């Protein structure tokens, strides 16, 4: 039986004023001229609600780059969807914030790149930290749920306690601390982003202590670094089980990175209804359920919990989208992950002063 999807991830645009070195957008960004029109999106929201979806996550790129964002929020709310905005905050004035909330926006997830302007702005490839701090104060004056989201990696994990303090100061009700996931842009920058084992161990202890201390005041969600885990993450809650992502040009994908898998054909909401795409399209059936699984997944008790991990990671690291996720300690290809970790965790042969600066590959903007 085909499961009922829970949420729609709407990548409204790939345009973004930030250039984060770990951006979850694909390397091949969708051009502005290809973006769906306002009416297309509103129809998609109605179809999503009819299919049983509860939430829509408006994201990008930077969703504020769409001048019709207020209309889109109105459309999502009148379809009955819970409406969440995932944003860098760049492009959000006090007036525009008020308009979005009046249109029915229910939750803002504001991204931060760190606790301090200089290092955060370096990761974002643009000056943005100070604006985010100001914006957080404006959000707190409104009656809207506020989550602060911080992606963590080798360059900022040593400041995790400071990041948590910033979230407390800014009055976030939720803090999402998400370790970088290595696809697209992040994979290209992996050598500078992958944390050390010592950092990972310390960060987990800091998060656990903060969760205890802040109980009832701020909820902290933590996305663990899967390279250091024994078993893979339950990527997207399973392929075609819970989530559907629509990219700016209207292609429907089972996850952010699925475009990297060769031989896949993603149907477009311009040609097909969401219900057909979810229930019938090849892309959503490809790795749904267990019939595609190889060993050791096929006979593993954990297959109902982690679904064999991430298909995109399997392709990117093992060259086969139908392989066990290489981060799994039981995967035949697990050595590729161990190799990457070894490079980060061996003591450096050179004194720190001679280490060259990180040479970042920044996320581009679409044409």
């Amino acid at each position, binding site marked *: 039986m085909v499961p009922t999807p829970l949420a729609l991830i709407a990548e409204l645009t790939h345009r973004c004023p930030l250039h984060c070195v770990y951006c979850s957008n694909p390397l091949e960004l969708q051009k502005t001229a290809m973006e769906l029109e306002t009416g297309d999106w509103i129809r998609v929201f109605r179809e999503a609600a009819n299919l049983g979806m509860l939430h829509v996550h408006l994201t990008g790129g930077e969703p504020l780059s769409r001048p019709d964002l207020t209309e889109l929020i109105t459309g999502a709310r009148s379809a009955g969807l*819970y409406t969440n905005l995932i944003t860098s905050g760049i492009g959000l004035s006090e007036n525009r914030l008020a308009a979005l909330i009046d249109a029915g926006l*229910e939750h803002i997830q504001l991204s931060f790149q760190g606790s301090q302007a200089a290092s955060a702005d370096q990761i974002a490839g643009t000056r943005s930290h100070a604006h985010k701090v100001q914006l957080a104060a404006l959000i707190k004056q409104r009656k809207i749920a506020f*989550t602060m989201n911080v992606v963590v990696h080798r360059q900022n994990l040593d400041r995790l306690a400071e990041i948590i303090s910033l979230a407390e100061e800014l009055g976030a009700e*939720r803090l999402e601390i998400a370790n970088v996931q290595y696809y697209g842009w992040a994979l290209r920058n992996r050598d500078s982003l992958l944390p050390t084992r010592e950092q990972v161990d310390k960060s987990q202890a800091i998060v656990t202590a903060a969760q205890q201390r802040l109980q009832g005041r701020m909820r902290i969600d933590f996305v663990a670094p899967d390279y250091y885990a024994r078993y893979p993450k339950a990527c997207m809650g399973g392929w075609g089980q819970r989530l559907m992502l629509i990219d700016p040009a209207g292609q429907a994908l089972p996850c952010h990175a699925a475009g990297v898998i060769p031989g896949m054909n993603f149907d477009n909401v311009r040609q097909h209804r969401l219900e057909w795409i979810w229930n019938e399209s090849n892309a959503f059936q490809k790795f749904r359920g267990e019939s595609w699984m190889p060993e050791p997944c096929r006979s593993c008790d954990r297959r109902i919990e982690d679904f064999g991990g991430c298909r995109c990671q399997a392709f990117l690291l093992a060259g086969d989208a139908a392989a066990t996720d290489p981060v799994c300690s039981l995967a035949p290809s697990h050595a590729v992950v161990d190799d990457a970790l070894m490079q980060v965790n061996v003591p450096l042969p050179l004194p720190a002063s001679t280490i060259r600066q990180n040479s970042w590959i920044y996320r581009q903007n679409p044409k």
Partner: protein
Amino acid sequence: MAKPDSNSKPRLAAGCRWADPNGAERMLLYPEGAIKLRGPGRDILERCDGRRTVQQIIDELHDQYRVANPARIADEVATFLEQLHKKRVVDL
């Protein structure tokens, strides 16, 4: 964590609301998820309106369910509200 004060007036936190999908069970939506509620859980949460006190909610539940041991209802309401407070679904 301390039990909720019996005089506090619990209410749904910002960003939490009820949804009544066609033909489906009533659900509470919050920023990253949803809870399907039935029975006493739903009866408690529907009374978290910022006007009733914890004590009033306990009294009303007691009238509704008429169980032999009233202390149990008080305990269960307190525990349930604490859990939802931790999840940031209810403000106490």
